[in-house]
């Protein structure tokens, strides 16, 4: 079975997508295209070469942390040039349960991180932020070296760290 990874398009069969998490199933079925049309986020889809059936997906969008949100003593540690701290949000990542155990989750994560590195050559980006949907997702990202942000259970990995993995 040959697969392809590309941006979400009209040919993709997404109605049957089922990863076991209702929020992530509903997103690809009903919301992803709308967010894409509004330029809020971009959805990358892993799908079957022949049937266009969706096997997994991830979404990327940009996100900024303002220097003014940081307390003075912390802001002072940053070079003055860092006015805003640009990040990429890997908002969602999911694999259909019927395709679990093939390493597609790791594949999609690696692809997303590499995409972020590629973007960072053309646009300042410090880190990739993820929003794990549950404990299982936290463990998944932790294993790849993501750092937990305690208050809201988001996680992040720096672009420099990703670059050192290649």
């Amino acid at each position, binding site marked *: 079975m040959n697969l392809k990874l590309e941006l979400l398009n009209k040919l993709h069969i997404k109605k049957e997508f089922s990863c076991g998490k209702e929020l992530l199933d509903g997103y690809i079925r009903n919301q992803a295209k709308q967010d894409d049309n509004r330029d809020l986020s971009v959805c990358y889809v892993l799908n079957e070469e022949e049937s266009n059936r969706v096997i997994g997906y991830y979404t990327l969008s940009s996100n900024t942390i303002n220097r003014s949100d940081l307390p003075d003593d912390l802001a002072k540690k940053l070079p003055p040039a860092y006015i805003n701290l640009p990040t990429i949000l890997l908002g969602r990542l999911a694999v259909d349960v019927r395709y679990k155990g093939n390493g597609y989750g*790791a594949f999609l994560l690696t692809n997303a991180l590499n995409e972020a590195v590629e973007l960072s050559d053309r646009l300042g980006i410090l880190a990739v932020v993820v929003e794990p949907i549950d404990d299982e997702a936290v463990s998944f990202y932790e294993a790849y070296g993501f750092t937990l942000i305690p208050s809201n259970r988001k996680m992040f990995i720096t672009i420099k760290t990703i670059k050192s993995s290649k």
Partner: protein
Amino acid sequence: MATLINDRIDVRISKEQKELIKYASALRGFKNVSEFIVTFITNEANKIVSENNTILNTLEDKKIFIETILNPPLANDKLKNAQINHSKLVGTDEPKIRIIK
């Protein structure tokens, strides 16, 4: 801006809770309980969405983020292996996964 009222939510609730809510609504001078509930729940929902959109909330969050940005760790073995697998899947003459840009 006037909001078009064209949908409804039915909520199951205990008699005691309903009495409490009606009383609180009256204390604040709301015209009716619906208006009271919509006002407070909308505020709360906005707060939740806004907090969720903010990446760093507490001082501890900010410290962790800045320290990591200034001293980025090297990638661990699991991520390095994932990179090797990724290259194998996309990089050969007949890739198992074709990347379309």
